[in-house]
């Protein structure tokens, strides 16, 4: 049985006349990384604040590891780690002190707090900056500190609001590894991000949030199922020279096949179609060097949801 690490049912929250979150239903399962995707202003941060027990929803119900954060915030807080998008670090505290004091706020005793701070600095790669004051940290380093702070009490549910922005490529790979390890250890991760390509590599599943409401699975499937563009590159040939042979192999009108720099862009209705197309190209003897979706599935779905939403309103 898969138990849900985070469940939300019809969660709503408005600020004055602004309905920031108007109907979110989601389940982030244990042992998986779930992405939270949506345009700016979709209500991602508001939703995460409610999940983090800081904001009370106007309606609906939330369970964090089977605890209602509204009814019993203390129990929920002992189980959840939250990394905010706004990186507030105490400017004149060192990395070590920040983590040790945070651990004290989670009821670790003095020695346990000090030990935990050392572990976390190794885990997020801040060992060399242990005695640096937070004000001298770069944005990416502060982000790692924020992540370490969220992990201080070894939570079973991790809520991350835009954790990857500002991280360098190595740090992103580290973050990905950390989140995968976290999920593999049977914990729950909910991560929001704008960098969809990044998200795609780490999430098991994604929840789409548009205008404060989660998008139904059917609509997501529909959007994901719509025709996508693949990039095709032929080895040793200019795209303009190769386009004819590719179009021939796929039975397309060469005049209607666009070219983008070195790549030829081919729309396929589904992944199955794409696979058939690749087979046809290889059979026709075209020297395929690259054959990949031009946009990630998340990005594709996201863009499609955004545009269909735009068309509706």
């Amino acid at each position: 049985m898969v138990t849900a690490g985070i469940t939300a049912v019809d969660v709503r929250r408005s600020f004055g006349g602004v309905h920031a979150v108007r109907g979110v239903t989601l389940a982030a399962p244990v042992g998986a990384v779930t992405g939270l995707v949506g345009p700016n202003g979709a209500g991602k941060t508001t939703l995460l604040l409610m999940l983090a027990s800081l904001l009370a929803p106007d309606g609906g119900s939330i369970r964090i590891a089977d605890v209602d954060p509204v009814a019993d915030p203390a129990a929920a807080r002992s189980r959840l780690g939250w990394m905010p998008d706004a990186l507030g670090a105490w400017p004149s505290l060192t990395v070590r002190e920040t983590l040790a004091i945070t651990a004290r706020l989670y009821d670790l005793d003095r020695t346990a707090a000090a030990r935990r701070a050392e572990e976390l600095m190794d885990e997020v790669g801040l060992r060399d900056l242990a005695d640096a004051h937070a004000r001298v940290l770069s944005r990416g380093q502060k982000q790692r500190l924020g992540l370490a702070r969220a992990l201080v009490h070894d939570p079973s549910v991790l809520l991350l609001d835009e954790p990857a922005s500002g991280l360098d490529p190595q740090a992103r790979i580290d973050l990905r590894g950390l989140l995968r390890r976290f999920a593999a250890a049977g914990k729950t991760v909910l991560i929001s991000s704008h960098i969809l390509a990044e998200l795609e590599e780490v999430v098991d599943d994604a929840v789409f949030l548009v205008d404060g409401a989660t998008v139904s699975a059917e609509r997501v499937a529909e959007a994901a199922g719509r025709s996508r563009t693949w990039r095709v590159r032929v080895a040793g040939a200019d795209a303009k020279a190769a386009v004819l042979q590719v179009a021939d192999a796929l039975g397309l009108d060469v005049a209607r096949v666009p070219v983008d720099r070195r790549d030829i862009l081919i729309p396929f209705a589904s992944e199955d179609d794409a696979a058939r197309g690749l087979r046809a190209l290889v059979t026709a003897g075209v020297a395929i060097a690259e054959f990949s979706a031009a946009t990630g599935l998340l990005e594709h779905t996201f863009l499609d949801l955004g545009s269909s939403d735009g068309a509706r309103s």
Partner: protein
Amino acid sequence: MNAARLWAVARLELLQRVRTVSWYVLLGVFALLLVGVTVLSFLAFGGMASTGDQRGAGIYSTIVVVTLLLVVLVSPTLSGNSLNGDRDAATLAPVQVTLARTSEILLGKVLAAWITGLAFAAVAAPFLVIATFAGGVDPVVVLVSLVVLVAEIGIIAAIGVGLSGILARPLFSVASTYLVVSALVFGTLIAFGLGGTALSSEATTTYRGMQYNADGSPQCSDGSTDCWNDPERMVCGEPEQSTYNVPRFDRVWWVLAANPFVILADATPAEYDRQGYPVDLFGQITAGVRGSQIAPDLDTRYDDCAAVQPDAGLTPAEIRDATVPSWFVGLAVQLLIAGALLFGAWSRTKTPARALPPGTRIA
């Protein structure tokens, strides 16, 4: 309520403060001011013959009063932005999401601001020790005045933290803290002065003068020229009556009860010299405040033709014995204000938040 978490919140605040240079500059300026005050009060009280053997008391009390004054002036900036400033810097929510309860966060902040204010008292400590060497300082006075000083610093810290939780903008809450503290320090004085004058009563004074000869000697009924101080033989004029308004400070004296300086002076046991006059600043403030409790005489009579009466005026020591202390009422009022503000801050800061102060976000 968990002491470890409360202290962790306070430590967060204190660690940051002790690492800012401006904080030490402020303490240094404060120490310099106290050097000046100590030197001047040695000159002022050292020259008083009547209190020669008790001049330490005067110097000591002056330093305590000046310390309270400076703490009153500085404290609002130390606590007046503690919650909303953290919210602006996005460092409040990371604490709120831990196991620290709202009450622990609030009281931790109060404790930190309190300890910070006490640093000023600590800077004043060497000067207080010097004052006691000058002699005449009663240990009970030292104990009580320091307890009141410490309590006042704490109350101002709590007012600042409370307002910083209620108001969204740090600048506005610091200004409001100053306003509340000024209302206690200066507002009570102004209300006392204006109120007492506005509620003035009409008093009559009756004066009967004696008659004088052209050369300035008193006219005597028996024709002699020397009847000074002998009402029997004086020639007296008609009594003259005049009316005027007297301010009724006895009706508004209680307004001063909540003044921090009045609380400090009123709570401290006053020391008097042999003539019944106060030897220190506490006693002088007390004399003024307690004296205002006594209703003015609305029907005064001056009669030159009466035998000279012994002076019926009361000495400050007698006034103090004849009137009621008010410091505990004032302290209770201040505690009530601080408590109400902290409660307001608590309900605005507690999470999961329902209503947010306008113009703020959680993180």
